[in-house]
């Protein structure tokens, strides 16, 4: 491995890393070397194991098998703080801030300067300014973190991590919510850090970024390393082939929609996070909704479905104006909603597959008050077979299923109601490729049977291949509509960035 031409020492070495979750082998015998001062890209599709790997390196998960060496010494991180003390800093993909905390307090998290028993505010604010200066950001340290923009939060997070002594800086898709200028600034910052001897592990599935930034790239697929390349010596085509490992056509199944009646119309929908949203979706089509983080695209589903309060607007289903105040109202008007966070919003995890599949059926069929186990078992069997849900039986607790199969249980719950409009929010987030392909196939079949599918997604390939029409959101408003024929990654992003 020394012939990589870096002429540098290995700072972090992971060998034979294996991690299992109930029902899935997330990582299988993964080796990874990180050299001092390099930018190492970790490339792979969603569900390839990138996030699991960095969570092991940063002490969030404990590994099942394998060893980690830091500067030649064997280490084992049981908690995130042990990893931090060893010099591993991580910028997570989702920046979860508690809104009422000030910028300065957040930067110092847990190590706030004190004078005796009291917080030393002058020292806190002066220190915060210094920390921020290093990454070239200037915000008032007294401001609440919740009021900062996504890119400011990102930079603050980097500043926070770099304020400790870091040897390895891990960044998990840091540009997913940044615009071009912000991305360029971030890249400069990363290159400066690398030049000063910090090793950066950069996770992304955007090839352009990897060619612009990284020295080396390691490709993961289905929990295994499928390739290691010097960026200067590889090509896009080679990376895609290594990452996908199969022809893309087999992943997506989509029959173009035929012209048909309008299934649902939304007029001037306005809520806390949405402004004047007007669109319609037709029977037999997949209507894709795209936006960057925080653009409000995620809220459309819950607003239509009666989960969140809407201030004004009208929803018309099949030509009739309907009032939807709760999910129960929505499902009675033939609307179903598969939420983004299936573990939090989609399933009662500690209950069985059977009970989860039937819950909405009983909510709709109010006259059924007594449970008939034979009937329930029949319905459950039907969906386990037709959606190919991999589960020992209908009596299995849903928590023990893999992500893809859990998602199929959520789908089964709604499909049992035969909805006319199916809204899906991030339908394939965090599920493996095989299950993904099956979900696409199910959605395509629904369309062919004349159902209307509204697919809210942040995943560009999914959006571009599956949608018949695309709506792009920016800052709570609609920024553009595109037909499948004219949609390209660039066109969608232009609208999404709001230019």
């Amino acid at each position, binding site marked *: 491995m020394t012939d990589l031409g870096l002429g540098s020492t290995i700072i972090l070495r992971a060998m034979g890393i294996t991690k299992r979750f109930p029902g899935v082998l997330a990582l299988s015998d993964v080796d990874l070397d990180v050299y001092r001062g390099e930018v190492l890209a970790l490339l792979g599709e969603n569900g390839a194991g990138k996030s699991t790997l960095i969570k092991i390196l940063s002490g969030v998960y404990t590994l099942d098998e394998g060893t980690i060496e830091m500067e030649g010494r064997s280490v084992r991180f049981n*908690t995130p703080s042990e990893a931090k003390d060893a010099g591993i800093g991580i910028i997570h993909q989702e920046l979860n801030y508690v809104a009422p905390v000030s910028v300065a307090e957040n930067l110092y998290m847990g190590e706030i300067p004190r004078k005796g028993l009291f917080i030393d505010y002058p020292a806190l604010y002066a220190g915060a300014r210094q920390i921020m200066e290093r990454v070239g950001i200037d915000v008032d340290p007294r401001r609440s973190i919740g009021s900062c923009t996504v890119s400011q939060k990102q930079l603050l997070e980097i500043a926070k991590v770099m304020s400790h002594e870091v040897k390895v800086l891990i960044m998990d898709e840091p540009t997913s919510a940044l615009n071009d200028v912000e991305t360029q600034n971030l890249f400069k910052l990363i290159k400066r850090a690398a030049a000063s001897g910090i090793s950066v592990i950069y996770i992304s599935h955007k090839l352009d970024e990897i060619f612009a930034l990284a020295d080396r790239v390691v490709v993961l697929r289905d929990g295994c390393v499928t390739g290691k390349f010097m960026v200067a010596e590889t090509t896009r085509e080679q990376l895609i082939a290594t990452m996908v490992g199969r022809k893309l056509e087999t992943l997506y199944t989509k029959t173009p929609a035929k012209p048909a009646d309008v299934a649902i119309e939304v007029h001037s929908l306005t809520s806390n996070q949405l402004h004047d949203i007007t669109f319609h979706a037709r029977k037999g089509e997949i209507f894709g909704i795209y936006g960057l983080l925080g653009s409000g695209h995620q809220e459309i589903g819950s607003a239509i479905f009666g989960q969140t309060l809407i201030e004004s607007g009208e929803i018309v289903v099949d030509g009739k104006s309907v009032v939807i105040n709760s999910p129960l109202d929505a499902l009675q008007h033939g609307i179903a909603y598969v939420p983004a966070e299936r573990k939090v919003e989609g399933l009662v995890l500690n209950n069985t597959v059977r009970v989860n599949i039937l*819950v*909405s059926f009983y*909510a709709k069929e109010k006259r059924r008050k007594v449970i008939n186990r034979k009937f329930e078992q029949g319905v459950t069997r039907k969906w386990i077979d037709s959606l190919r849900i991999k589960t020992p039986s209908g009596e299995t607790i849903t928590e023990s299923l893999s992500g893809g199969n859990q998602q199929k249980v959520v789908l089964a719950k709604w499909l049992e109601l035969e909805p006319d409009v199916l809204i899906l929010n991030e339908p394939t987030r965090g599920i493996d490729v095989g299950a993904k392909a099956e979900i696409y196939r199910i959605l395509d079949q629904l369309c062919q049977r004349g159902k209307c599918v509204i697919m809210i997604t942040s995943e560009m390939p999914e959006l571009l291949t599956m949608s018949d029409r695309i709506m792009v959101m920016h800052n709570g408003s609609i920024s553009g509509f595109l037909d499948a024929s004219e949609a390209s990654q660039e066109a969608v992003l232009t609208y999404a960035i709001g230019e």
Partner: protein
Amino acid sequence: MEATIKDLKVKSIYKKLVSSPDASSLITVSTALLGLILFFSFSSPYFFSKTVFLNIGMYAAIMGTLACSMTFINVSGNIDISGGSQIAVVGMVTAVLIKSGSMPLWLCVLLGVASGTVCGMINGFFITVIKVNAFITTIATMQMLRGIAYLISNGQTLVISDQKFKFLGRGYVSGIPFTLIMLVVFYIVFHIISRNTVFGRTIYMIGGNPLASFLSGIRVQRIKFILYTLNGTMAGCAGIMLASQSGAGLPMAAMNSNMQALSAVILGGAGLSGGRGTILGTFIGVMVLCTLITGMTMLSISSFWQDVIVGVVLLISVSIDAIKSGSLKRKI
């Protein structure tokens, strides 16, 4: 060959029993009950007799009636600590009505139970409409309702001399205490609700994940309101039984009942995190507590020590459940 298939079946049933947390706590609490009965039978020659068991049943009625509906509250992921105060209010209202002599006894009893229902609706209103935390709401109503119980008679005990009323708490039907019969009826009805109705299923769903339940079309707040109203109604029944047993409306009645009922519910496997627990478990939990207290009294253990021992039994029992579900292997 057939034998091995049968073997496998037995094994899988056994595995299912041990792997399900509800079954696991049922086994724990049943073992505890058996152990206690054996222990007291050996330590006291008078323990193992029909009279003692009927007494245990009678003693169990007040706490058991309350624990029955409280199980649903706990399964739904909520809590009610105001049950004891509700019982006191019901006793006072019933005593005032009977003493006034202005209406037939059955109406007095009905209105007494209804006063419990109203108490439950007050809890339900604040918890589901104003959406105040359930623990905080019932801390407040616990004190408020206790105060009202005192105010009704200005702190006086109201003696009820109606002989027919005494039957509800102290009567026997062919040798079995009426309260025990009622208790068994309550538990059978609640058991059927929890196992065989959509409503019962819904309680478990709400407790397991209220947000996912709501997004599946369940009217979560409405179900919770019904549960608190039901709990108030059951406190009403318990209040009637207690007033009849003590032959009076006592404003300081049932000071301990709520915590005892809650202990029994938790012993039976319906913790506070929701989605777990069974009516059968609570029934055995009630029996464990009552056997323990009756047995200790027969061995003339002082009531101070009884409190200590009840607390220790509760701690041991929940610790066993926690350890069985792998708490020692978790970091947080």
